[in-house]
């Protein structure tokens, strides 16, 4: 949605996506998202296979909660005024990101759990 927007929207006499700073922001969004998708699917796969997954779950919930929030904040910046309008679906994502990061343990709580596991010597599962 955001990539399409910056490829079409023109500002300052050029398409937004031709600005390097904008490209950088969409790259950060893509990296956050791809990492979130990988750690989430990895943890779900381990659960489905009946393998130990506590460490992977802590990583996935800590990372994905932050990633969704970061991505929606950057998307708001790139959509500008259009993303502020409630007719645009972006606000639905940013509200859900706020809520989902807190539900079933916040990123901070899962990072603490992960750190405790490392401290107690529970290494890679």
């Amino acid at each position: 949605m955001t990539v399409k927007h910056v490829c079409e929207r023109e500002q300052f006499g050029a398409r937004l996506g031709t600005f390097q700073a904008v490209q950088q922001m969409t790259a950060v969004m893509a990296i956050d998202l791809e990492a979130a998708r990988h750690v989430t699917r990895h943890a779900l796969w381990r659960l489905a296979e009946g393998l130990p997954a506590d460490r992977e779950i802590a990583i996935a919930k800590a990372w994905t909660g932050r990633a969704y929030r970061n991505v929606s904040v950057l998307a708001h910046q790139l959509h500008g005024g259009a993303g502020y309008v409630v007719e645009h679906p972006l606000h639905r994502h940013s509200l859900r990101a706020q809520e989902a990061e807190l539900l079933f343990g916040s990123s901070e709580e899962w990072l603490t759990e992960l750190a405790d596991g490392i401290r107690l010597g529970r290494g890679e599962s």
Partner: protein
Amino acid sequence: MDLAPTPEQQAVQSQARRFLAAELTRERLAAFDREPAGHDAAFWRDVAALGWFGFGLPEACGGQGASILDVGLLLEECGRAVAPHGVFAAIGGALAVDTLASTAQKRVWLPALAAGQRHATIAVAERHAVNDPRAFATVLSRRGNGLVLRGAKWCVPQAVTADVFLVVARYRRGGCAVLVPADTPGVSVRPLGTLGKDRQSVVAFDGVTLPAGALCGRPAAVWSRWERLRRRLAMLLCAEMVGGPRRRSR
């Protein structure tokens, strides 16, 4: 480890994507915002007909026996379309009943939950939330042959449409879980205004009298099972979140 979706998983995802894209138009979502439930009855019936509420439940009770990974892939599509919160709440509530409830309770509830005719939700968080059952102010005690539940649970998702609450409470010096039908005398639901478009409520239990059979298994085993379940639910939520930024413009 092969994390690429199988053809079957891709089929479930693309069917869900088409369905949600067709149903959840901007106008429909705006109308859902005004509904106390966050969705309407027609949408709920359509989702039930697709079998989503029973997707991850055992086949013996009307479910489809899908793995948690499969359920996660379905929820990715819900996240992509920002589907009403009730869908996640109902899928999570049904999985909680399947994980924590007694065999007799599952026989009563799971077929209806799988079919989407009934809706269960989880009531665990408290106002002064500490993730430890010994600190809970919602307390279950024995009275004669039955049980009494007192206290209040906060941030209960989708309580406005729930038929049954799976309550994790304090029992003696540890935790326990009880199934409380929403129409039990002494149960009250007060919607909680939240920043998001979710539907949370405070559910109060004012000396609610329950039969001994309301207890979900042995109390001593409940807290560790809840903690395992919380991890599974957190992962399903991650799957929904991962779907969010993958939205394509129409």
